[in-house]
């Protein structure tokens, strides 16, 4: 026998147990309808797994456990599920809960089931799961899922297993009778717990008011190999409280907020142990329990082995219910139980007692009076709280203070209320306070959640706004980008168009070259045969070709006009910028000149002179080339090979001319700026004039060289054409077309070249183009001369006039070119609001006169072409 200790306080209310211990446990009647609540335990309610109308067998699972803190529910008897819905359940609130109603068929037919003969082989976890599956929850009162308690052995060292058989509440005798009659089975159940928890010591704590039960247990443990002690504890309410019993048996106090397992103790109710035994041994689920039916309201108070879900009315009827006498129906004991209004409320796993009490037996609670601070409640409190203080706090709704006074350690045993001389329903205050605090905590949790969600929403909204702004910005940026891209694209298109055109020009140039070469070849082939007919035929051919060329020219002009404006604006802009920089440069130069007085200006003049020198050099180079070219021409026998050699030379010349031109331009701007400042500009202007002259010379030399080459070619061609037969008639036409085409192309190429040179974009394309233009020019001259020669040869047959005419033509063209250039320069000047527009206009007029002279000198036959040229000029301007 272990030593028995004591716990603080406690009371000795009248036991009233003898009424129900007079007879053995009776088999409870099978009610017509069983109402099985889905929540019979602490934790999450079970979830129905049957439907209305299903036939269920006894022990069949009708609701599944939901989560760890839950146990399944089984059908207590065979029958049909008639409804799943709200019904009154045993709860102090009297509120309905979800129940499965089973209409029993009276057969009480078991589902196939078998126990676990040798559970030790199964393993602990599986055995615990098995016990959980049998729907076993604590039967002492709280309904704690047993499986959870059995798992305590996993992470706690369990020294002591305490079997709670105290049954301290008055009236209740269910455990007493169970122990008296089924002690061996209880020991068997303890064996299962011994296997699962492996405690070193097992104590069955039993109040000394149950001598028969003690004796039965002692007999039962005699053959038991486990270390089991049956310890009788003095009868004192509430020794059956878990923590109180632990204190009684081990003198260990479970710490505040802790569980018994924290101190190495696990407590199980004796009824639960019996249920475990039934489950393991026979495979029976928890579908019945022993319920004490007692009170003066029944004739024959007795314990019944009752099916879960049996309405209390059925039980009471079995015990001889006298409804008239009954004042209150109390579920549980008189101390901790609660009244119910509805006698159809069913028995659940935790229902150990139903008391049908008369008015005398349980009188109405007398009106409560003011607390007199007698302190009796403190004397009896088993948890050593200050019930009086708690009462004040609960009443004054100072819940925080109540909490600080360990309100939640109160086991609601009701001892304080029992002893209170003022009949204050203290426990009710505490319960109210507890639920209120819990509610507040719940609300706090909820409000925290709400805050979290609110903040999340706010953040999201803010983010959305920011994103929107960012998007808008991005969109704006993108739009700007797109616009820029568009611009760039347009530019690119322009440039590509330019490139395309350049390419086109190149191609056409090539074609022209080929055509020219062909004609030349033909002419050379036909040399020797001299016939006027062929020449005339050639003339017609040429004329036709000319018309075609006119058409092509117009088309090209149109196309250039289409793309021109964009290019022009840009070009103008760039030119303006360029002109500005040049102007500023010149100004700077002038400033330095002014600072240094005369010598500065001289320096400027010197630079201009160097420029002119350079132009001279170019001129010389050109002249050299010129001299070389004719020789080459005359000596060369293969006309196809000539252009190449000439190409290089005329290229050089052309570049030289271009350089000279740019230099002249620079000089001109310098002069302009100089004139702005009113310095001695005469010298400068003279220099420029000189330069201009030189340029003209260079250009004319260039033209001459071209003429020379062309004339040489023409001579050979003419001889060829003279010798050509019938086919030469076609040849001349072809020649003419080719010439016209070449001319147009040349013009176009030149304009393009002008642009390029103006832009100072010395790209490879530009250079190539330039070169090609040069070649083209040459060729045009050649072909034209060729043509003219043919033409002239036919009517006049005079070589001298022919050469004169061609010379005049060259002159005219030269003049025209100059005039065009001058016009563009004038335009630029106008745009820059230069003060020398007047001067320029006069010079242009001069040029025009020159041009007119050239035109007049030209033969009548070329006037049409000239007018066309003029048109082109105008369109270019």
């Amino acid at each position, binding site marked *: 026998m272990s030593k028995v200790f004591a716990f603080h306080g406690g009371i000795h209310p009248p036991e009233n147990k003898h009424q129900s211990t007079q007879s053995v446990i009776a088999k409870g009647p099978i009610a017509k309808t069983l109402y099985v609540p889905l929540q019979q335990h602490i934790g999450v309610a079970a979830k129905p797994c049957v439907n209305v109308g299903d036939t269920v067998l006894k022990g069949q699972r009708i609701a599944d456990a939901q989560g760890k803190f839950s146990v399944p529910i089984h059908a207590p008897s065979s029958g049909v599920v008639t409804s799943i819905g709200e019904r009154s359940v045993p709860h102090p609130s009297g509120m309905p809960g979800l129940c499965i109603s089973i209409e029993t068929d009276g057969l009480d037919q078991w589902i196939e089931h078998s126990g676990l003969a040798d559970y030790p082989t199964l393993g602990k976890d599986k055995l615990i799961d098995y016990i959980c599956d049998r729907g076993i929850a604590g039967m002492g009162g709280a309904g704690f899922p047993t499986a959870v308690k059995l798992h305590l052995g996993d992470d706690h060292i369990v020294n002591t297993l305490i079997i709670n058989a105290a049954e301290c509440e008055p009236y209740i005798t269910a455990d007493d009778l169970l122990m008296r009659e089924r002690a061996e089975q209880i020991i068997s159940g303890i064996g299962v717990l011994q296997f699962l928890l492996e405690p070193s010591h097992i104590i069955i704590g039993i109040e000394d008011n149950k001598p028969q039960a003690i004796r039965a247990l002692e007999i039962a443990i005699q053959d038991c190999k486990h270390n089991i002690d049956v310890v009788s504890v003095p009868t004192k309410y509430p020794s059956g409280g878990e923590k109180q019993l632990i204190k009684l048996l081990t003198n260990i106090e479970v710490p505040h907020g802790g569980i018994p397992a924290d101190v190495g103790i696990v407590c199980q109710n004796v009824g639960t142990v019996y249920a475990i035994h039934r489950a393991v041994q026979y495979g029976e689920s928890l579908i019945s329990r022993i319920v004490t039916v007692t009170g003066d309201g029944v004739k024959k108070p007795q314990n019944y082995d009752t099916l879960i879900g049996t309405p209390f009315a059925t039980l009471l009827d079995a015990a001889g219910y006298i409804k008239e006498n009954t004042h209150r129906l109390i579920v549980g004991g008189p101390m901790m139980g609660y009244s119910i209004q509805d006698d159809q409320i069913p028995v659940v796993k935790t229902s150990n007692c139903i008391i049908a009490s008369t008015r005398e037996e349980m009188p109405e609670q007398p009106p*409560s009076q003011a607390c007199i601070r007698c302190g009796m409640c403190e004397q009896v409190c088993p948890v050593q709280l200050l019930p009086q203080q708690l009462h004040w706090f609960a009443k004054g709704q100072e819940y925080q203070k109540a909490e600080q006074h360990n309100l939640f350690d109160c086991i609601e045993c009701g001892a304080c209320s029992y002893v209170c001389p003022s009949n204050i329903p203290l426990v*009710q*205050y505490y319960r109210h306070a*507890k639920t209120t605090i819990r509610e507040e905590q*719940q609300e706090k949790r909820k409000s925290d959640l*709400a805050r979290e969600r609110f903040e999340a929403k706010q953040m999201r909204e803010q983010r959305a706004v920011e994103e929107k702004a960012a998007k808008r910005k991005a969109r704006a940026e993108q739009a700007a980008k797109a616009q820029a891209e568009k611009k760039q694209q347009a530019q690119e298109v322009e440039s590509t168009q330019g490139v395309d055109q350049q390419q086109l020009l190149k191609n056409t140039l090539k074609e022209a070259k080929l055509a020219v070469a062909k004609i030349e070849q033909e002419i050379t082939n036909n040399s020797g045969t001299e016939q006027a007919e062929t020449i005339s035929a050639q003339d017609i051919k040429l004329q036709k070709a000319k018309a075609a060329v006119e058409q092509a020219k117009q088309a090209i002009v149109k196309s250039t006009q289409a793309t021109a404006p964009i290019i022009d604006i840009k070009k103008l802009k760039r030119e303006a910028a360029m002109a500005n920089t040049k102007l500023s440069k010149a100004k700077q130069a002038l400033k330095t000149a002014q600072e240094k007085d005369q010598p500065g200006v001289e320096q400027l003049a010197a630079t201009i002179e160097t420029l002119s020198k350079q132009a001279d050099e170019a001129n010389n180079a050109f002249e050299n080339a010129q001299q070389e070219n004719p020789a080459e021409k005359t000596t060369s026998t293969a006309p196809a090979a000539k252009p190449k050699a000439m190409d290089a030379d005329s290229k050089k010349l052309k570049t030289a001319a271009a350089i000279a031109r740019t230099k002249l331009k620079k000089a001109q701007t310098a002069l302009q700026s100089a004139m702005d400042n009113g310095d001695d500009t005469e010298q400068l202007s003279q220099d420029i004039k000189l330069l201009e002259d030189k340029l003209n010379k260079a250009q004319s030399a260039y033209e001459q060289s071209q003429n020379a080459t062309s004339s040489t070619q023409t001579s050979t061609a003419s001889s060829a054409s003279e010798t050509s037969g019938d086919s030469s008639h076609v040849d001349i036409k072809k020649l003419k077309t080719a010439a016209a085409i070449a001319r147009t192309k040349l013009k176009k190429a030149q304009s393009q070249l002008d642009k390029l040179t103006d832009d100072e974009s010395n790209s490879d394309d530009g250079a190539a183009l330039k070169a090609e233009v040069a070649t083209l020019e040459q060729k045009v001259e050649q072909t034209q001369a060729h043509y003219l020669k043919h033409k002239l040869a036919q009517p006049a047959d005079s070589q001298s006039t022919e050469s004169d005419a061609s010379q005049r033509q060259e002159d005219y063209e030269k003049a025209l070119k100059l005039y065009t250039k001058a016009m563009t320069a004038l335009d630029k000047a106008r745009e820059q609001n230069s003060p020398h527009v007047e001067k320029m206009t006069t010079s242009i007029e001069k040029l025009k006169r020159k041009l007119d002279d050239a035109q007049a000198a030209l033969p009548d036959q070329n006037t049409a072409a000239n007018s066309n040229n003029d048109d082109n000029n105008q369109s270019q301007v």
Partner: protein
Amino acid sequence: MTIIIAVSVLLGLAIIFGLVLGFSAIKFHVEGNPIVDQIDSILPQTQCGQCGHPGCRPYAESIAEGEAINKCPPGGQATIEALADLLDVEVLELDGEHDENPIKTIAYIREDECIGCTKCIQACPVDAILGAAKQMHTVITDECTGCDLCVAPCPVDCIDMLPIPTTLNTWKWQAPQPYQTHSKNLIATDKQPAVETLS
């Protein structure tokens, strides 16, 4: 000499303490106003805006700046008391016309009538309404704070504010009736003699 020692000692101490204080002022600097957080934790977070602020936190901020503490109807008297306790100010009566014990409600959408306009979703401060455009909406009852803000925007008036039903899990023990109410005839001498009434 002694004076110089005394002055220098005090000066040294002053420098040391100044450094310590300066350091701790930087090291333990608290971001924001901690009282606002405390007030905010007391407020019920319904985000209903009945205080005239767009949410509980703004009200908490303005309380910290001296606004009256009695403008929160959802919080009721309990909140006012808690705030008064926290801020050490006088407990005030709840401002304006309000029920003594307002019944806590949450929103329910009559789903048959919902047209799926999403207006309530936008109005809900705690994202407790679930739904999509042209789809039926429903209230997540666990998240609803009962702030009422979704009712007004509903174009078809299909939102009801219903009291939160008590379940077995949320049921609350009622406080016992105070003894004064039924202690009229407790003392024998207080009882009206039956004889007197007869005569």
